[in-house]
């Protein structure tokens, strides 16, 4: 994992030690805070049993409902959280800080779900399935960001590339059918990646400005065509949708079957792309070269790696991934393009990339967390909890700020990120 690049703790290094201790203290305080929340807010209030439906009665291997008594569960979870928090203070928690926090967050989410569902029933499998679906564009956006930023090109334009992919998918999909639309979306995404590369590599435009401009341009162009052309010629905005395809046997598994193996092309595609790019970036020679360009372009150049070409290739690839992710919005769900239909999902992808520490698997995991928050927000209205759904919707962004600020473990971007390289 890339996050373990930090030097091992040396007792004689006082500053390092105090930084670690500070981090442990912050983590401990957060865990204790969560414990208080779970014990006194969820625990006091919880009554009855929370019923989680794990499978539908028609499934081949149906699981019985999971029934959790809400009160006792909150107390157990709260006590565990308190134990983890106190442990951070007592031992300095040098090694288990991040793990404790992850475990604590999972406990908190579980306690929250149990509390919200107490006395009611709720389909866990349905929500996990929705989580996966919602995570797809975010994960693909994040992956596009990883590919670009690993060669030190900051890509703010993910949002625009997603939107371009969605638009092209709808337009070409209506004319040539789903597969044609998909290929065109990937090509157009790649074209915008290439434009971004040209602007920042060849014309040395500021990377952030270039990204902002591409976003503005794509938003303007797609909105213009959609109101100028689509409103008149409706058949141009009526693409077929890729249906879910159940993988035999695996798709029948309870809980994970519907989540992972009964989805459409885009979910499978995202999972495969994440696996492929992880292998490519970290286990192949050209992946190593790409990362070298991102960390120290000058050294890479000295070794005979063509920095400019590497950046062009990877940013274009990133654009293609984003174009594929964009096609999800039209070909993967509704088959129709609406103005600004990505609604900031590209920026969330950017957040997922940072949250996932510039690693494809990390970006996918972060996207799942964000997708979970997103689908939980939809469910909250059904469960009628007193927590406003807007605050839940904000939580991924707040979490991203916390990670970027390094309150809990610093996320390290590639060293040369954002800097143009001028060949001598």
């Amino acid at each position, binding site marked *: 994992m890339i996050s373990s690049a930090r030097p091992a703790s040396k007792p004689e290094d006082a500053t390092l030690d105090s930084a670690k201790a500070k981090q442990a203290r912050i983590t401990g305080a957060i865990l204790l805070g969560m414990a208080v929340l779970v014990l006194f807010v969820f625990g006091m209030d919880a009554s009855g049993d929370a019923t989680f439906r794990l499978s539908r009665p028609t499934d081949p291997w149906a699981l019985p409902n999971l029934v959790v008594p809400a009160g006792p569960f909150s107390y157990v979870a709260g006590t565990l959280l308190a134990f983890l928090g106190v442990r951070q203070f007592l031992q300095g928690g040098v090694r288990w800080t991040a793990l404790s926090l992850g475990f604590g967050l999972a406990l908190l989410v579980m306690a929250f779900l149990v509390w919200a569902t107490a006395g009611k029933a709720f389909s866990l499998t349905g929500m996990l399935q929705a989580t996966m679906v919602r995570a797809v564009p975010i994960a693909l956006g994040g992956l596009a960001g990883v590919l670009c930023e690993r060669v030190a090109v*900051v890509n*703010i334009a993910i949002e625009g590339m997603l939107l371009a992919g969605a638009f092209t998918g709808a337009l070409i999909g209506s004319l040539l059918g789903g597969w044609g639309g998909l290929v065109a979306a990937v090509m157009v995404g790649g074209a915008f990646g290439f434009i971004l590369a040209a*602007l920042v590599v*060849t*014309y*040395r*435009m*500021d990377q*952030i*400005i*270039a990204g*902002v*401009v*591409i*976003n*503005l*341009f794509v*938003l*303007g*162009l797609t*909105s*213009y*065509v959609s*109101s*100028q*052309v689509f409103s008149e010629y409706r058949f141009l905005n009526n693409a077929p949708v890729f249906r879910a395809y159940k993988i035999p046997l695996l798709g029948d598994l309870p809980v994970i079957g519907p989540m992972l193996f009964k989805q459409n092309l885009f979910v499978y595609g995202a999972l495969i792309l994440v696996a492929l790019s992880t292998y490519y970036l970290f286990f192949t020679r050209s992946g190593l070269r790409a990362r070298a360009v991102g960390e120290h372009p000058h050294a890479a150049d000295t070794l005979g790696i063509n920095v400019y070409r590497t950046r062009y290739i990877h940013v274009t690839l990133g654009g293609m991934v984003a174009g594929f992710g964009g096609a999800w919005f039209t070909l993967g769900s509704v088959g129709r393009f609406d*103005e600004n239909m990505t609604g*900031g999902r590209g*920026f*969330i992808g*950017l*957040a997922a990339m*940072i949250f996932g520490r510039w690693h494809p698997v990390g970006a996918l995991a972060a996207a799942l967390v964000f997708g979970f928050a997103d689908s939980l927000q939809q469910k909250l209205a059904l469960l009628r909890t007193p927590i*406003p759904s*807007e*605050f839940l*919707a*904000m939580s991924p*962004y*707040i979490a*991203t*700020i916390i990670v*970027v*600020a*390094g*309150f809990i473990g610093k996320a390290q971007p590639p060293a040369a990120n954002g800097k143009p390289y001028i060949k001598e």
Partner: protein
Amino acid sequence: MSKSLNETLDRSAKALLERTTHGRQDFETLVIVPVFAVIVALFLGGLIMLATNVDLATIGKSYVALARGSVGSLSALSETLTAAIPLVLAGLGLALGFRAGLFNIGAEGQLLLGGMAAVVAAFMLDGLPWVIHLPVALLAGALVGALYASIAGWLKAATGAHEVISTIMLNLISFRLLDYLLRQPFIQKEGRADPISKSVPESAELPRLLDWLDPNLRLHAGVFLMLAAVGFVHWLLFRSKIGFAFRASGENPHAARYAGMKSGLIIVAAMATAGALAGLAGASQVLGVLDRATPGFSAGIGFDAIAVALMGRSHPLGVLLAGLLFGALEAGGRQMQLDAGVSIDLISIIQALIIVFIAAPLLVKTLFPWGFRADKKAKGGTQ
């Protein structure tokens, strides 16, 4: 007094134009590139119209409408100025940030929350005389914008979190926060189920300036606010000590730190000032034009302001001119939609293209080498 002020302004503007743009300070970048950018962008806009099956006559008609709707009449001028006010205000804030080396993408969020605060202050304090009421509402907007922006500034100063990421996240947070606030009973308009705030009472409105001529003229007193802000930012950046600190830490943070400037404080102060201006832009929009807050009332002004600040080369006077140009495009675009039936979204395309050409002068030089070679000879070929 005003004459000497003008002279100082002129002198400093001239001195500044020489200094502003990091070594590319010649006539080419300041005049030729922007002019080319606008012409080429308008031309490409025409090509896009052609590509989307708009016939030549309509294209001609739409450009006539664009001109007529932006500068062709008194009401067109009023619309142009009205659209320019928030763009210039927010653009000034962003320009200030650029000078201090901060890329603030968060103007949209600061603008939204600033406008929201102005609306809340306006209807909560109903009954005050306007001399107090209006300034208080404007101040509330500026203050909340400043506070919201300084979160990003503080994060950068204290932890090194990059402001681009944190302001993007703060933008996304502000959209949700606004949705939440607009549904709160003390903010939501009585008897409405949709998220919409109560109206601004008349004593807190920015007064319309030309309604004695024609009640449809929307130009409001925010235009003075805009001009005052241009003067203030100019003074702040080029005449005050703190402005010098902003620019020094923007040019070279290390040198600034060695010279004894407190870099953390400068970052927070620069972000707060930028946020105050964005908040003011939001306040002027709700108090002068919209009269209430609704979800997304900012309509992308915060993002367009980035373009305005870039086009204005982060110089207050440049921002004013760029804001007027973008305001004119906005107002003309509405006329274009009305007269020629061409969607106003074309204007966003043209704006984006302008910025591409402005921000990548190398690209313009590649596309139009002849425009520059002649000029270079005349000037002895700087660069």
